[in-house]
């Protein structure tokens, strides 16, 4: 056994160093232990893994391509930029990877009712999709504000047969949707499976969601080795809760030559108070079942985040990210709303790809970094979602009426 590996976490208490854990009400605790046991068993079951692989290839459309962005690379004049095209997955984002994994687990556990929270609506759509396919009841909690700015996804979820419940408490965004989903779970715990969409929440969710998303990093590693014959120098991914980043990074954690860069949403600017940069501007705290970096005031009250991207508009971050930041394995930077909008437009014009506003933040960081690197440096940006859902938001910010 490799004892100095960074890939062995979490420990048996669900901790990554100080972070993670199981900070939930007693009502949920037996259910979380049951989930942990069911997942451990499934993880070791070759039949489960084979089934997962088969759904990945035939339903999700994996592997997603690793695409050399030639014109973007030429425009920036530095590192060679590859895009991991998880936006080409069925439903248009990386979220489906995790949803397939968890719905197979829910079915294995005999659950019939699925609940989920969603911000941008991508996780809600992916959850509604697998619930339709696996014939399960689906309730998606979504903040009232996110419902306003992600109308196309709300309609998609309803077409897929899900009930979308509007959440009017707090900031009416992702955090409040998650509060409401937890309230539903505590009320309907016997029948209900909570399909969390990010590497957040109580143990075992951060590890389980990471495992299902790690297909992104495993494919990337094989693809770059095939195309370039070596590992990349830099991996860049946007982080809200952090699932696409953890999926890309995790298979590379022990490859110390590979820089891992997480990009947070700087909103209107890191020093304006209007951002969602938990790692850069938060401090450790406990929310939604885990300890991690959290945007909070002096008294431990959660501060409402801000980002143009509904998927990054969350005051916390996955616990494994917090640990990777503290031990110095992962670098953290941020991109503003404006930078993300510029990156969105640049990729559209140069590569013919409309990225979601979430990966547009990762692209913005890549656009800053690439010119400073030599031309033989290899960079992979996780293009974790497509931008169709965001055209109304982008149009509004560009002063265009659709």
């Amino acid at each position, binding site marked *: 056994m490799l004892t100095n590996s960074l890939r062995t976490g979490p420990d048996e*208490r669900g901790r990554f160093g100080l972070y993670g*854990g*199981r*900070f*939930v*009400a*007693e*009502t*949920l*605790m*037996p*259910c979380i232990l049951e989930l942990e046991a069911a997942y451990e068993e499934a993880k070791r079951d070759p039949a489960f893994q084979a089934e997962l692989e088969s759904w990945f290839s035939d339903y999700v459309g994996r592997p997603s391509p690793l695409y050399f962005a030639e014109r973007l690379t030429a425009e920036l004049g530095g590192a060679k930029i590859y895009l991991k095209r998880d936006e080409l997955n069925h439903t248009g984002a990386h979220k489906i990877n995790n949803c397939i994994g968890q719905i197979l687990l829910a079915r294995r556990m005999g659950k019939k009712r699925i609940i989920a929270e969603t911000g941008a609506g991508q996780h809600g759509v992916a959850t509604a999709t697998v619930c339709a396919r696996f014939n399960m009841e689906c309730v998606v909690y979504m903040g009232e504000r996110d419902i306003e700015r992600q109308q196309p996804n709300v309609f998609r979820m309803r077409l897929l047969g899900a009930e979308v419940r509007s959440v009017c*408490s*707090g900031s009416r965004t992702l*955090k*409040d949707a998650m*509060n409401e989903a*937890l*309230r539903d779970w*505590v*009320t*309907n*715990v*016997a029948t209900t499976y909570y399909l969390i969409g990010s590497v957040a929440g109580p143990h075992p969710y951060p590890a389980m969601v990471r495992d299902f998303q790690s297909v992104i990093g495993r494919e990337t590693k094989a693809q770059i080795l095939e195309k370039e014959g070596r590992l990349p120098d830099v991996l860049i991914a946007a982080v809200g809760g952090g699932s696409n980043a953890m999926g890309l990074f995790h298979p590379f954690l022990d490859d110390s030559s590979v820089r891992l860069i997480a990009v947070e949403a700087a909103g209107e600017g890191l020093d304006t108070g209007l951002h969602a940069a938990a790692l850069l501007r938060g401090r*450790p*705290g*406990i*929310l*939604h*079942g885990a*300890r991690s970096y*959290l945007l*909070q005031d*002096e*008294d*431990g*009250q*959660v501060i409402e985040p801000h980002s143009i991207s509904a998927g990054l508009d969350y005051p916390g971050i996955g616990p494994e990210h917090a640990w990777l930041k503290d031990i110095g394995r992962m670098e953290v930077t941020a991109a503003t709303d404006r930078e993300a909008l510029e990156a969105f437009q640049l990729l559209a014009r140069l590569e013919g790809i409309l990225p979601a506003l979430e990966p547009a933040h990762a692209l913005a960081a890549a656009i800053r970094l690439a010119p400073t690197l030599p031309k033989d440096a290899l960079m992979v940006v996780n293009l974790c979602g497509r931008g169709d859902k965001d055209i109304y938001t982008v149009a509004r910010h560009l002063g265009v009426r659709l």
Partner: protein
Amino acid sequence: MTTRIERRFAELRAQNRAGLITFLVAGDPDIPVFEQLLEGLPAAGADLIEVGMPFSDPMADGPVIQAANLRALQAGITLARTLEIVRRFRERDAATPIVLMGYYNPIWAYGRLRFLDDAIDAGVDGLIVVDLPPEEDEELCLPALERGLDFIRLATPTTDDRRLPQVLKNVRGFLYYVSLTGVTGVKDAIAEAVAPQLDRIRRHTNLPIAVGFGIKTNEQAAAIARIADAVVVGSALVGEVAAHLDERGEARRELVPAVHAKVAALARAVREARR
């Protein structure tokens, strides 16, 4: 040495009756009105007092207590001010146990060990922290017990016989049985469903058992008082606070007497339940 909570439950046993535990949120609807509410609770008939420590994201609470948390935060309540309020109460009342109830993050942000010391110093008798199950006992429960502060745990309908010993292991003071699966103040507690659960739990512990969640009416309180050692009423009282706010959200003159009258009615129901 006995604690205030032990002494209070001993008195209740001697009187062959259940106790009434009232829950209000610290600083709701504002700090001065809350202090008047708190001060009058023992005379109105509260045997033990639970004080909610407001949090921006109260995941285990229904809409009534969520709204109270927000009102209190808007009124400027902090954990430090909550402790000051308890300290002032304690100067006037040495007998009524006070239990603080809330979520872990404000305590963590305050500094968990400093919080325990300051809470004891202020005259707090016990803590209920909703999001600290036994799996996380090292965080706060064990340091609290070392310092002599009771840690009151929740047991729920999902806590089965296999898990109960773990839940009971580090409880001191009393056990809080959550009558239903759900958040506070939404569904109704049903005494017939609770009774066999209490019998089951009593096979594992001699601790007093308080029952809460979903107890709103005098009749419900009386029914639970026949089978439990104490009855917790929260959302119904917090709802009474909300019902006496004017259009600007400020307390009407009749708010404090109305809440105390409701407590008095519940206390009568609880006291007469076993006669």
